[in-house]
């Protein structure tokens, strides 16, 4: 099927002797929003880092937008350019202003003229409501603002898929909402999203599917309503009872 933008089959990954991901099968259709949850150490982050090959998998296959990720994928940069990623620690470039953070990759990777890149950046910064901070440096912004900037930076590459790796875990409770709002808006605009998060409210609001992982395996995968209403496995029930 052509609208399956991500296809993961029988994927296994080891860190040394330790198997972090076991027999992962996952298909994501275009414009779907997937939330991945689970206890810490369950391999959620590793899974989405495999999707843009920040981590290498050892067995099985990952196909992103028709390209299989293997050790000899020559144009891995091209695939990464199509997959935006937002990190727990923001990972903004501290030596560049907010605007330059957003324009750096479009100018140098996509060879966009500087003027166009800046217009695009301002446009995306406005969407996450920090266009007025464009000329400050990351160190001068609050955590929530930095994370929204990170979202804008990823969007400036006009990716087909957005990956979020616990985007709100390093934030103060007050700032979580502003970041989640930005993500909700993005979801409403129709972006394909895979979000690792513990924010169940967010999952209920935007997710099409929820995946529950434990010990490197996908324990449960269900439609959002179904997931929260009738979780099947005991492990999921336990997790939900603790987190809700």
């Amino acid at each position, binding site marked *: 099927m052509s609208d399956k933008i991500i296809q993961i089959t029988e994927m296994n990954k080891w860190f040394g002797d330790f198997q972090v991901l076991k027999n992962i099968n996952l298909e994501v259709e275009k414009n779907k929003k997937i939330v991945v949850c689970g206890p810490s150490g369950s391999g959620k982050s590793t899974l989405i880092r495999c999707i*843009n090959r920040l981590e290498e998998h050892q067995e099985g296959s990952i196909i992103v937008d028709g390209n299989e990720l293997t050790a000899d994928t020559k144009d891995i940069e091209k695939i*990464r350019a199509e997959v*935006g990623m937002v990190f727990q620690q923001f990972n903004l470039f501290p*030596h560049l202003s907010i605007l330059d953070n957003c324009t*750096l990759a479009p100018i140098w990777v996509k060879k966009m003229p500087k003027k166009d890149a800046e217009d695009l950046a301002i446009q995306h910064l406005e969407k996450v409501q920090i266009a007025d901070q464009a000329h400050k440096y990351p160190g001068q912004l609050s955590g929530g603002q930095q994370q929204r900037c990170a979202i804008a930076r*990823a969007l400036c*590459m006009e990716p087909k898929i957005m990956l979020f790796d616990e985007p709100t875990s390093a934030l103060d409770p007050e700032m979580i909402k502003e970041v989640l709002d930005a993500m909700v808006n993005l979801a409403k605009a129709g972006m394909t999203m895979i979000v690792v998060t513990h924010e169940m409210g967010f999952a209920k609001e935007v997710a099409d599917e929820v995946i529950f992982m434990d010990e490197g395996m996908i324990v449960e995968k269900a439609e959002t309503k179904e997931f929260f209403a009738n979780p099947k496995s005991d492990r999921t029930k336990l997790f939900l009872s603790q987190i809700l």
Partner: protein
Amino acid sequence: MNKLNFLQPDKNNLNTYLYTGTILVALSIFIVFLNSFFNKDLISFLPGTLSFFLPLILGFIGLHLIRIEYSGLKFLDSINKHINTNNFNAFLSLLIVFVVIKSLPPLLSWFILDANIAGDSKDVCTGTGACWTYIKIWFNRFMYGMYPNAEQWRINLSFIALAFLGTIGFFATEKFKKYLTLYYVVIYPVIAFFFIFFFISGGPIFFDFSYGIIAAVISIIIGFFIPSKFKMYYFIIVPITLYILLKYVFFYEELIELGKLEALEWVETGAWGGLSLTFIVSFFCLIFCFPIGLFLSLGRRSDFPIIKYFSIGMIEFWRGVPLITVLFMSSVMFPMFLPEDMFIDKLVRVIIAISLFEAAYVAEVIRGGLQALPRGQYDAAKSLGMGYWKMHILVILPQALKLVIPGIANTFLALVKDTPLIFVVGLLEIVGMLNLAKTNPEWLGFAMEGYVFASVLFFIICYAMSKYSYNLEQKYKTER
């Protein structure tokens, strides 16, 4: 009036304590001052040991009396906070003041009061002070070494031109700003090399310099009409081709004729010397060792085993051998490995040797900076689709290099101060010239003046560099 307690001065009798204390401190300083400047000992009637320590004791008691917290007097509070926080600090402060007062008269007399600068032979130096005449007479040699006097304008002109070209970056317009790095990293060193190697050397080789300039000018003019996509290759290939064409095709026959033309006088590198040689050696070593060190540091973290182990080998080798043996090897052993008819200039060999040597240190300093960066920076750059080089040039190195500015400055300062070592291969930069001059039979016995002079020069150079590095740090401080 409150009761006076001299062991614990407090605010209540502020003035009493203040006056007593100030008088005691002033008295102690006055005694030392008289003793030092006028050789009068006010307290000689006391037994020897006591008269020696009396100023210290008086000052110490005085400082103790004025140590009153929150007195309300700004000046007093500031003194108490900075030099008089407790008994030990008061003691150290007094000691420093006394040492300064004591050492001023002899220093002043040696440097200025009893020194000589007039005249032009050593006979005028009759005083007990320094003989600056010696520096004056030898100044030219200290600056230019054995370089012929009539040709010294070439060194001056080169340095002025290079200084001018170096500052051009400050006046660059917005449009050319993005080429500045390229200019400083690639073009400027090449120009500098041309200038120093061809212009200061002179001789037939000077015509190569002219061809180089002609080739560069022509290719820059044509370069304006080349689509920007090919510019990179264009500027690498065309100037070199033009240069070769000029040299071997167009002017080949004239070259033989040119021997008759009046070229610049050939000055072999062995005759270069003095401070200008210090500058030349440090300058080239600085600009060469930095990129080499940068690549070695990246190579050491590379995933390719060949590059990685080559880099480790290079770094460990050059760090493991003393500079002096490297210099010896470059001048004595290295030519043995070359084919008979091949000859590389001694100065060039020395510059290469020092550059490689310092590059190993620079590499390790930069590696420290690379390791200080969080992994997230690499992840973020990769996730935006940047490849290895883009990631390093745009994201990693700007941050890492900023972190290691103090370390790099350290290495560079050490490099500048290591240059006198090139005397072991017979190149005499300023310290070498000093050693030569002090053994001149007409000017025996002025080694001191020479070394003081060299120290002052080195201090000025190094202090300027260290200030500049500090400015750079401040300029690129963006976070937190």
